[in-house]
């Protein structure tokens, strides 16, 4: 607090006058000392960002939390005076079979997506770290999934996975891998797998780009030293490369997790949550609850499951990124 009139303020005039600057009425309010002026300027600079954060982040979250404790209907949703519901919405949500399965589906979908994205993303990143003809073109093609709107991706995948005439079945039957076309999206046991595959495709560019850039930071000499120490390619990857890029892998997973638990458009485009709610995720089911069944309270309660997940991830992310900063700055020669 006792700011020692930082470098910018030529404050020797104040020293020895006896009273602390800024502590005596209007006169000093207008003639702020250098230090308080700086503090005021700092807050002024922060104001737009704070206003934006309050409006875009805090408000919806607070409103959502509020909704989950209210008994809202179409008639009260526009006002803020809905009847208080206590934990009713939460008990309703946890007793809702579909909500339960949506939570399980979201978990399966997320774990499956991240595993697939990591394995394929790392493989591609390793591939692009080698020189081969057409590398630059191939590397740019990786980000194509990002150029397609999610809802379009969903529709394209729906076409590809169609039972009759879908590209996937034609290839699988054509190559003799399966004998009869599979109803990928119409069978409850396959539908979640199918949307997960589509989501893996969507997330691969993110993993590839981050892991690729991390791989570029691994010094060639260290890999050569491992080679000379007798490590085979698999050992070099497992014992040297992956541990060195581990901080990036951790952060990639964390961000990937946040992106995956909230996937919505893709599933709506492919299955709409069906068949028989087999691909119902937290996001799609809370949307259905809220905007088709107008059960706003339970929808908000379900959504807060995601909020909790995000609240766990945010500090973890800060911790990891700070850790990585420390590690990388300390590891310099």
């Amino acid at each position, binding site marked *: 607090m006792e700011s020692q009139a930082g470098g910018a303020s030529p404050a020797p005039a104040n020293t020895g006058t006896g009273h602390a600057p800024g502590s005596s009425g209007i006169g000093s309010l207008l003639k702020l000392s250098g230090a308080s002026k700086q503090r005021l300027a700092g807050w002024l600079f922060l104001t737009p960002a704070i206003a934006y954060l309050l409006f875009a982040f805090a408000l919806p979250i607070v409103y959502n939390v509020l909704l989950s404790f209210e008994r809202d209907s179409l008639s009260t949703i526009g006002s803020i005076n809905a009847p208080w519901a206590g934990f009713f919405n939460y008990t309703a949500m946890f007793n809702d079979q579909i909500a339960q399965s949506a939570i399980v589906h979201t978990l399966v979908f997320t774990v499956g997506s991240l595993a697939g994205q990591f394995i394929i993303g790392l493989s591609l990143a390793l591939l692009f770290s080698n020189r081969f003809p057409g590398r630059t073109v191939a590397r740019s093609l990786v980000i194509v999934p990002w150029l397609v709107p999610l809802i379009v991706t969903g529709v394209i995948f729906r076409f590809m996975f169609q039972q009759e005439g879908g590209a996937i079945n034609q290839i699988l039957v054509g190559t003799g891998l399966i004998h009869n076309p599979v109803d990928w999206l119409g069978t409850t046991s396959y539908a979640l797998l199918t949307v997960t595959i589509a989501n893996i495709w969507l997330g691969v560019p993110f993993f590839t780009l981050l892991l690729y850039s991390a791989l570029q930071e691994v010094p060639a000499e260290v890999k*050569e*030293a*491992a080679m000379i*120490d007798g*490590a085979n390619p698999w050992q070099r990857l497992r*014992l040297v490369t992956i541990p*060195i890029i581990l901080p990036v892998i951790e952060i990639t997973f964390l961000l990937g997790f946040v992106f995956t638990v909230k996937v919505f458009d893709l599933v709506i485009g492919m299955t709409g949550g069906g068949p028989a709610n087999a691909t119902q995720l937290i996001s799609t089911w809370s949307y259905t609850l809220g905007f088709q069944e107008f059960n706003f309270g339970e929808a908000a309660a379900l959504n807060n499951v995601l909020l909790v997940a995000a609240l766990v991830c945010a500090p973890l992310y800060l911790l990891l990124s700070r850790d990585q900063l420390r590690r990388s700055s300390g*590891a310099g*020669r």
Partner: protein
Amino acid sequence: MATLSLEQVTKVFANGVEAVSEFDLFVEEGEFVVLVGPSGCGKTTLLRMVAGLEELTSGTIRLGGQIVNDVSARDRDVAMVFQNYALYPHLNVLDNIAFSLRVRGVPKHQRHPKAREAADVLGLTAVVLRKPAQLSGGQRQRVAMGRALVREPAVFLMDEPLSNLDANLRVQMRSEVLRVQRRLGVAALYVTHDQTEAMTMGDRVAVLRGGTLQQLATPQELYENPANLFVASFIGSPPMNLYEGEISGSADRLVLSLGSQKLALPAESGHRHRVLEAGRGRKLVAGIRPEDLTVADGETADQQATLTALVELVELLGNESLVHFSTDATRVRNNTGGAWTPDATAHGEIVGASAAEGVARIDPRVPVATGDRVALVVDVERIHFFDAETGATIGATDQSPTAPQQPS
């Protein structure tokens, strides 16, 4: 343990640059050979080819008699210390040292005692659990050597391992490196651009330039009988003074002219004398080591071969003084057309010393001051002569000095 032999080793990079051409070298078991030369002379490429990190364009590398051209780096059984140490940043000292044992499947309870022993030898006992980022430069250097120590490699390779250390530590680590190599008792190949390191560490030193071997000899031999102008100018600090000269006079009394000054050469009957005599009237290059010059005292001056010079600068070093002087002779230093030209820009010492036109290393008690005009006595028997066209030493006993002598 094994011998290392390189035969006609050539490396041409994809862009057409010939980094190493027809290089021959034989390293005995336990021998410490230094590859030295200015940057870009191909010494690191050579080392990487021995390590298996770079493919040969042609030629043969043998380890213990076995051709290893197509053996991958990991099966070649070499240990290597890299310029930037190349430690595994996520592993502590012990695990860094034990890494080669780990990938060979040696269990922890066996590899850790070995790594600890190596750490003790290198004075790393107190820091074995630290990660590389928490170590000083010298400690990292020691860990890098520890990785070689725990193995029993066929050959020990080092790529400028001391260049990232400060001057004091570098001197100290020289003996440390030698100690490790003696302990391993294997053939060692050490790359450096620092001629002092080469001279102090190598059993033999190979001087490279532009991918070709200039001379392979013991440090003393390199210093006293450089095969050519490049070696003469590269080895020695401060470097040899090199001047354009001309031989004249009668067969029994040859005279060397350096600019307007003349030095009578002693009558000798050797091979060199005959070559010099035959070359009368042709331009050549005369080289005088700084310590072969002394300041004449008044009485004897006219009886000896002296060079009159203007003192430009005196560097008092305590045990000796370096007198930078100028004469009217033409200093040979960067002959752009000549084939022998030392890469002056790549070697700071050559550039630095060429500010004045010559350096003499004299007794610090002889009073000499900037601006003095002095007579410098030349030890004429120790003048080196080089062909001005080819840069080759004139009258060297071995007429093809670049051919390595292979003990076999």
